[in-house]
């Protein structure tokens, strides 16, 4: 056992750090560090830079553009991106839809979608949840009826993150409403969002941001060639995707950056000398130190290439709890100034960062709800790991 980087690993870290330093635009970095909204161009711009460098999809097979990095290299890459304030790689394409295509897609589907996905030519989003199907995803009702060479899709998706940026959406739809088991009769469809009949409506969240949407489908005609895996076998695909969806939701590298920030702010506010604050901060820091090692231990176990199992649920639970705790501590560092929420364009000299802490705290409440609520994650661990 050795927690130090080898000379090769150190050299790799330096290479990544230097590349990010030379390629991350200052204004984008500034938005990330100050919790400001990233535009579609900000997100895809960074994606394209990474694609050009060959680093946008480290986990893909080599022949499709994967990096063949070791587990430690992947960890180093995440660390450096997190520390530097890089925008996130939007996961719906490269991290979620791509593994599905690689596992279940036809050659034609792979050829058609993977290179564009890699190069950031399409913005992908996820169409899973529905008003009546949240944690109980298998109760979804959006219908897809076969009509010649097409499926005709009618229904509604909800909580579609960045749906307003979406060019393509992968959806779970019901192709057979009469099956005995609800899990049967579901299919996995890829849908071009410019197709007539699709309406995207924003849902304003408690921080007053626009991030998630409702997506309505009104007799949307989708070519049958966009079906992934067999008709009515979509649940198999969905289950396969679950582990990938939760991968990276631990957000450890970003939490390390936020922790450093909390300390900086707390020091400025004189709170590090307050034992009540210091103790709360320490417990979060210690939990994060442990989670970093837990993450590395799990990554180490994944080296054989087996898909992530229930252990990533643990990372999701702890990682999101830590994220929330950090936003709470950060909000506290602002003291009475934390209530100074005003529109960001308000006026010159206005402390936009302090004003962002309350909405940020509000916004991150989502972390324990999305990608399978933490209670659902506990159900998964209870069943899959503990055998209860």
């Amino acid at each position, binding site marked *: *056992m*050795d*927690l*130090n*980087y*080898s000379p090769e*690993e150190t050299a790799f870290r330096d290479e990544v750090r230097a590349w990010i330093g030379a390629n991350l635009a200052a204004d984008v970095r500034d938005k990330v560090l100050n919790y400001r909204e990233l535009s579609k161009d900000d997100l895809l711009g960074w994606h394209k830079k990474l694609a050009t460098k060959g680093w946008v999809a480290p986990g893909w097979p080599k022949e499709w553009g994967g990096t063949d990095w070791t587990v*430690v290299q992947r*960890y180093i890459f995440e660390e450096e991106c997190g520390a530097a304030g890089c925008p996130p790689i939007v996961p719906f394409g490269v991290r979620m839809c791509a593994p599905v295509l690689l596992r279940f897609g036809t050659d034609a589907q792979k050829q058609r979608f993977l290179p564009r996905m890699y190069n950031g030519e399409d913005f992908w989003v996820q169409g899973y949840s529905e008003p009546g199907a949240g944690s109980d995803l298998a109760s979804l009702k959006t219908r897809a009826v076969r009509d010649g060479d097409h499926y005709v899709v009618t229904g509604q998706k909800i909580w579609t993150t960045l749906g307003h940026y979406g060019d393509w959406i992968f959806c779970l739809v019901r192709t057979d409403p009469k099956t005995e088991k609800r899990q049967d009769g579901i299919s996995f469809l890829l849908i071009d969002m410019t197709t007539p009949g699709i309406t995207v409506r924003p849902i304003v969240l408690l921080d007053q941001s626009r991030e998630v949407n409702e997506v309505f489908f009104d007799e949307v005609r989708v070519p049958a060639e966009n079906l992934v895996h067999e008709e009515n076998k979509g649940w198999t695909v969905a289950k396969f995707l679950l582990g990938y969806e939760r991968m990276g939701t631990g957000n450890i590298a970003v939490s390390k950056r936020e922790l450093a920030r909390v*300390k900086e702010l707390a020091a400025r506010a004189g709170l*590090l*000398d307050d*034992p009540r604050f*210091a*103790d709360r901060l*320490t*417990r979060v*820091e*210690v*939990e994060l*130190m*442990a*989670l*970093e*090692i*837990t993450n*590395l*231990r799990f990554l*180490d176990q994944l080296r054989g290439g087996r898909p992530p199992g229930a252990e990533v649920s*643990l990372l999701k*639970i*702890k990682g999101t709890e830590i994220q929330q705790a950090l936003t709470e501590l950060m909000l506290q560092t602002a003291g009475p100034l934390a209530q100074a929420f005003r529109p960001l364009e308000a006026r010159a000299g206005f402390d936009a960062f302090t004003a962002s802490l309350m909405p940020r705290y509000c916004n991150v409440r989502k972390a324990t709800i999305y990608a399978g609520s933490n*209670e659902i994650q*506990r*159900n998964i*661990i*209870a069943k899959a*790991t*503990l*055998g*209860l």
Partner: protein
Amino acid sequence: MNFEYSDEQRLLSETLRKFLNTGYGFDARAKITATPAGFSEDVWAALAEMGILGVPFDEKFGGFGGTTVDMMVVMEALGEALVVEPYLATVGLGGRFVARGGAAPQQARILPALIAGKTKMAFAQTEPEARYDLARVATRATPSGDGWVLEGDKRAVLHGGCADLLVVSARTAGGDGDARGISLFLVERGAAGLAIDDARTLDNLRVADVRLSGVRVGRDALLGAEGGGLPLIEEVVDYATALVCAEAVGAIKYAHDATLDYLKTRRQFGVPIGSFQALQHRMVDVLIAYEQARSIATLACVKVDTADAAERRRVVSAAKVKIADAARHVSQEAVQLHGGMGMTEELKISHTFRRLTTIAQAFGDADHHLARFAAARASA
């Protein structure tokens, strides 16, 4: 960077576990703790025979030259089986003092005998008013002839009753609480003026009150530099703290496994109680606490070997905060989820509860280490 256990570590773990599984079951342990000494010389001899007593010591003394991660493997196994023999006191404290601070003749005299199972050791440090403050040493060592005379009171000396050789902290200069002026002395059992009052603890280990009344020691009893003992004490106590964290991981693992098993077998309302979501989620939180405890203990064991003093302090305190929290959380949940059975003497779970309760406060409780961690942060 890698997280693999080496072949040696795996072999060590397997050998020890095989021995404990066959020879140190719960019933065997109960017989051992019921004896007047409260531990088994046969088990001790077997640990020596297997080389377990020599794991961290240099090969030239007959040891294995192992790292603290090697020791983690041992401590976890001992923790899972709730081993009561004086391993931590002898190897983790006494032996560590000699290995890190002893002069060559002291090492040559003591370590081979320790590794062979012939010398047991203990560390007499804690005093009635000191709580966890390692600088609070009021015991005095006054120069006399060619040595010193020791005078003072030590409390809760882990396995002090069976120790052949005590490491005693005493003041050669300064006042109670001063960082400088603390020295360490080797005191043999049977020294005139040494009174040892041995007692059983609720977790079936042994602690002793040690009274030193005019105990004479020679020059060769001084361990390390005169007056400069505190850094060595801190280093060794940090080492032992990392080890007790690893022991806790083993005990937590047992509590987890036994509780999970109970949830699957205990039936109420016609179904296993593990089918109830209220209990499932609590069990998952126990699992998470176990994984997090294992991670932080691993980090502490690695850093004890590789970090500078400031980083070592920071990481060991971080580990002890997490371990103390996890020990309390998991032990309490284990008893609660076992229901009335968890309260009984006859189940190992209640003994695990007691051991974890003690460990939570050993070498500083969570509050102590929260403060120490914050101090390390302030000076970073």
